């Protein structure tokens, strides 16, 4: 299309928009803003939820990679010489840090009123070295009562609120409201019984083993397990900007071929199914939003073009090319799409996101926030523009190609 043709088409579009029914134009832009808002909000919310779940898993439960004891050529119950192994792993470029865990199982017992009415709950007990752990897994940020000391004493314990009870948690089995300072007894699966003082209670939105875990010191765990300088698991945190997850596991495997490695994605289980489902829903909702926008533009352009059939015929009769007429409608479509996009973006970034920053939506697996990437926003904008162009072009083409005399005289 030549500059002259484009100028002519633009002039027609400009005059049609500026002299058109303002209320109709406002309605169209309102509908398109809503469609684009829907497109952005749902996809941002669902991706944000997925992102939040993953981040929560990585930050509070698994880190990126979990190193486990060897099974070949012989099964070992622990990772031995864990300090050397961790030191070796931490030499790999991009590794942020490592932390070791001991894992035990037991039953917590608590008598709140000291009246013989005991509450019991099974739990996973994790032995940690908190001053090393806190840069890798950040449970300490979720303390709601007491603290998570950097150096836990052997008779101290930090509980999840799902175990202690209270704090708005709803578990069928908990200790009925144990508090900081209370004493709980743990009957370990190996028969040992110990009594601990609760020094901290944390609350994670995430349902799962970590939210219902208890933490004791590494030395306490070693005394229970009769081992030393070992680990049930080593958590490895990595920088994914420097290498891929597979890249890191390959490097660790090369260093320690006998150790078993698991990526955090393998431990998603139910959460993983939910994340996959939500991602699929996000795609479906996005497609529907785009279709709704396209149909809106199509109908508006078609009605406009049909109502101006005679005028279009006259324009063609005096020598205005069909392509100019079609282009004028495409320009109008792009205009309406652009304003719809701007309207939707204003609502998202200046209203919804600030509100959600102050009051995030609590979900079972973590607080949901809207997550966007530049690429994602560009894709959403491009999709709506392309849909608008097609939705404007097709009806314009249908009406513009009609025979001149038929357009004018019917």
């Amino acid at each position, binding site marked *: 299309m*030549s*500059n*002259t*043709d484009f*100028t*002519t088409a633009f*002039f*027609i579009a400009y*005059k*049609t928009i*500026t*002299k*058109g029914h303002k209320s109709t134009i406002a309605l169209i832009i309102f509908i398109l803003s809503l469609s684009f808002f829907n497109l952005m909000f749902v996809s941002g919310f669902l991706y944000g939820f997925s992102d939040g779940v993953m981040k929560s898993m990585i930050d509070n439960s698994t880190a990126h990679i979990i190193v486990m004891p060897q099974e070949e050529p012989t099964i070992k119950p622990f990772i031995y010489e864990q300090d050397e192994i961790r030191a070796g792993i931490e030499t790999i470029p991009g590794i942020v840090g490592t932390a070791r865990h001991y894992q035990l199982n037991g039953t917590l017992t608590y008598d709140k009123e000291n009246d013989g009415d005991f509450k019991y709950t099974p739990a996973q007990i994790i032995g940690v070295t908190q001053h090393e752990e806190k840069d890798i897994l950040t449970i300490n940020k979720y303390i709601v009562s007491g603290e998570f000391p950097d150096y836990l004493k052997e008779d101290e314990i930090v509980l999840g609120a799902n175990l202690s009870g209270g704090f708005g948690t709803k578990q069928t089995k908990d200790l009925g409201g144990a508090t900081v300072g209370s004493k709980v007894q743990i009957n370990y699966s190996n028969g040992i019984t110990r009594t601990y003082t609760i020094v901290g209670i944390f609350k994670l939105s995430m349902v799962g083993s970590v939210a219902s875990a208890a933490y004791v010191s590494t030395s306490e765990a070693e005394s229970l397990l009769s081992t030393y300088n070992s680990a049930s698991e080593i958590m490895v945190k990595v920088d994914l900007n420097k290498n891929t997850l597979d890249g890191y596991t390959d490097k660790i495997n090369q260093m320690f071929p006998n150790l078993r490695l698991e990526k955090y994605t393998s431990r998603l289980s139910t959460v993983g199914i939910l994340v996959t489902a939500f991602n699929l829903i996000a795609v479906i909702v996005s497609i529907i939003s785009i279709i709704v926008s396209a149909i809106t533009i199509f109908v508006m352009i078609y009605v406009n073009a049909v109502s101006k059939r*005679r*005028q279009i015929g*006259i*324009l*063609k*009769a*005096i*020598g*205005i*090319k*069909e392509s*100019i007429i079609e282009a004028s409608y495409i320009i109008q479509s792009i205009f309406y799409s652009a304003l719809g996009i701007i309207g939707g973006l204003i609502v998202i970034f200046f209203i919804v996101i600030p509100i959600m920053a102050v009051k995030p939506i609590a979900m079972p697996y973590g607080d949901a926030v809207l997550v966007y990437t530049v690429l994602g926003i560009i894709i959403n904008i491009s999709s709506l523009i392309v849909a608008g162009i097609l939705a404007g072009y097709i009806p314009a083409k249908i009406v513009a190609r009609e025979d*001149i*005399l038929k357009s*004018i005289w019917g």
Partner: protein
Amino acid sequence: MALKGVSLEIAEGEFVALMGRSGSGKSTLLHQLGLLDMPTEGSVLINKFDVLSLTDSERTKFRLQYLGYVFQEYALIAEFTALENVFFPAMALGDNDAKERAEHLLDLVGLKDRMHHYPNEMSGGEQQRVAIARSLINNPKVLFADEPTANLDTVSSEIIFKLFQKLNKELKQTILVVTHEPEDKRYVDRVIWLKDGLIEDEE
């Protein structure tokens, strides 16, 4: 078959009326001469050039550059002012200096003081005069008018035909008009009568 075999010649600067009863083929003849419709057989020569040999897009451009049209329904663009309606065909040709010429044409048709008004602010006669000014903006070889006064009252119709006469006399504009009003004969140089798709008479 609307036309059964018509041959005619219109000289440059002539003002010719096509007349006849409804269904005589006068509008069909006008449309075919004006390249709005294609004859089944025959040729249309404008300045000795066979315009029927042009492609669809070439005919569109030819209409814009060399022909002018006035329709019964005025057919102004509602969103354009009178001035914009007039210079719009020139804009489509890339002539960005046509505004002054458009103002002159509106003055010629007696509507200079209405140039910034929209069609819905004008009477039928005024709109038709704007349409006539529009048809002249690209200095057409031939101006085709298809029953331009059919929707106008007697006074407005007289104004329009006097305007055509003025354009013909002062600008030497070649005009071919379809009309079914016998009193319009007095304005033209020649009348061609059609009946049943054939030329019945000329006067």
